[in-house]
Structure formats: C-alpha cells, structure tokens
C-alpha cells in the first residue's frame, strides 16, 4: 500500500466536516461579537467624549478585557468550541490567546512560566502589527513628503 492509497482509506473512514454548519456558527457568533462591539462604541460615544473616529480604540480594549475575563472563568473555551473561527478572528481572540497561554504555563512559575509564555501565540500578532504599522506609516510619510497624497 502506498501513501496515496493509505490517505484515501483514511479519508473514507474520517467523519465529514460539517463545513456549512461550521461556517454558519462562525458567522453568527462572530456577528454577535461585532454587534456587542458596536453597542460598546455607542456607549462610549454617548457617555464619554469619544467621536466615531476615536471610539474604536477604547472599544477594542474593552472587548479584549471582556475576552480575557471570559477566558479566565472558562467560558470562552465553550464559545470557541462552538464557533471556531467566529470567536478567534475578532479581537476577542487576541485576549483569549494571551490569557489561555498564561494559564497553561502558570505551573512553571510566574516569570519563566507566565511571563515567558504569555505572548507565545499573540506575540507574533503584536510584532506583525507593530512592524506593518511602521512600514505603512513610513510609506505614507514618504508619499506626503513627495506630494502625492495629503494627510
């Protein structure tokens, strides 16, 4: 039996992934998370002096904070088991990845365990974000200096 035959047999034996149901679940839960985000934006605009443009920053922070709390109490695990990418793609997934890594390595101590491993998953996101923001800003600055676009 060669590799291909083996793979065919494995594929036949495996239960089929319910793609459509998974996508629907991800769509619904992701949508609900975004709706909650929108409500938080309205809250910040209404009760604080944030405008539509600036309200996104505290909203992202609040959503990450809520996701961190939910992860700590063990609720986010249930949500992500149900929704998959629907709960991982919004910014709440970032909070979840930081706290779940921290919880996982807690037994190894606070510095080497929690501190050293907390950003194992989210670290790459932060580095990528900072680096790409730097390059985008650099390109825009050059374009503005040349006079192609304005701020």
């Amino acid at each position: 039996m060669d590799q291909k035959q083996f793979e065919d047999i494995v594929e036949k034996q495996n239960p089929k992934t319910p793609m459509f149901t998974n996508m629907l679940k991800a769509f619904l839960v992701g949508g609900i998370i975004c709706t909650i985000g929108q409500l938080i934006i309205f809250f910040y605009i209404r009760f604080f002096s944030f405008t539509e443009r600036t309200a996104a920053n505290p909203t992202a922070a609040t959503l990450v904070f809520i996701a961190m709390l939910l992860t700590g109490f063990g609720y986010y695990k249930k949500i992500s088991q149900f929704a998959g990418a629907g709960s991982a793609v919004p910014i709440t997934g970032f909070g979840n990845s930081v706290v779940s890594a921290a919880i996982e390595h807690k037994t190894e101590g606070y510095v080497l365990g929690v501190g050293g491993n907390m950003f194992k998953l989210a670290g790459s996101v932060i580095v990528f974000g900072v680096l790409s923001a730097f390059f985008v800003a650099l390109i825009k600055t050059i374009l503005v200096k040349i006079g192609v676009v304005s701020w």
Partner: protein
Amino acid sequence: MKNKWIVILLFLTLGACSDAPERVVYPSDDLELEKILDKQDSIIGYKSLMDNNTLLVSIEIPTMKRFSKVKIEENIKKELENEYPNKKVIVIDDLKIKWEIEKIIEKEHESKELTKSIEKILALSKEET
C-alpha cells in the same frame, strides 16, 4: 434557557433600530441654508448650528456612500463656503457631533451659550486619540 436566548437575540437585533434621519437647522430662520442642504442627493439627513462666526453642519451619509465620505463632506463644505464667505464652515459626518448638536437644539441655547457650545463641539471633532 430558551427565553434567555430570545431576550439576548432581541436585544442584539433591536440594538440597530434608530429614528428616521432628520433635517434640522438651528436657529431655524435661515431658509437659504435649508435650501442648499435639502438639494444634496448624497445625504439623507442633517443638523446644523450657526452663530455669528461659525456654521457647523452634521450630515448623515447612507451606509453604502460612506466610502466617499471625505469627498461628500468637502463638496458640501465648498458649496456652503461660497454661500457664507464670512463664516468658518465645518461639515462633518459623526454620530457624536450629531448627538451634541441635538442636545444644544433641545436646550435652545441663545447666542453666547451657542458660541460656547459650538467651540466645545469643534474641540471634540479635532480629537485624535
């Protein structure tokens, strides 16, 4: 359990409900301004405040036209600047500004108070962080 989900879903779906867009000019004696704003096809609603030096207009752009928001704002601003050359014209599409203008209209501020509140809103609109 089922009831709880129904309540949560209702809360989330009804969260999108809002009033129909309004067209308000304050103080309401300026018919020329109303005429100019009414003939704009790219906006569905507006609220404006005017004192001796400033004309502040908060516009409402339909969702699909929001991609060209800056352009629409600039076009209306230019048109209003031609009509009111002595005034500082600010045209902005922002929920916060709209709500603040609504508050001022509700309180029916007079000239001095109006200038003060307009200055406050301008400071808000310049906020970057």
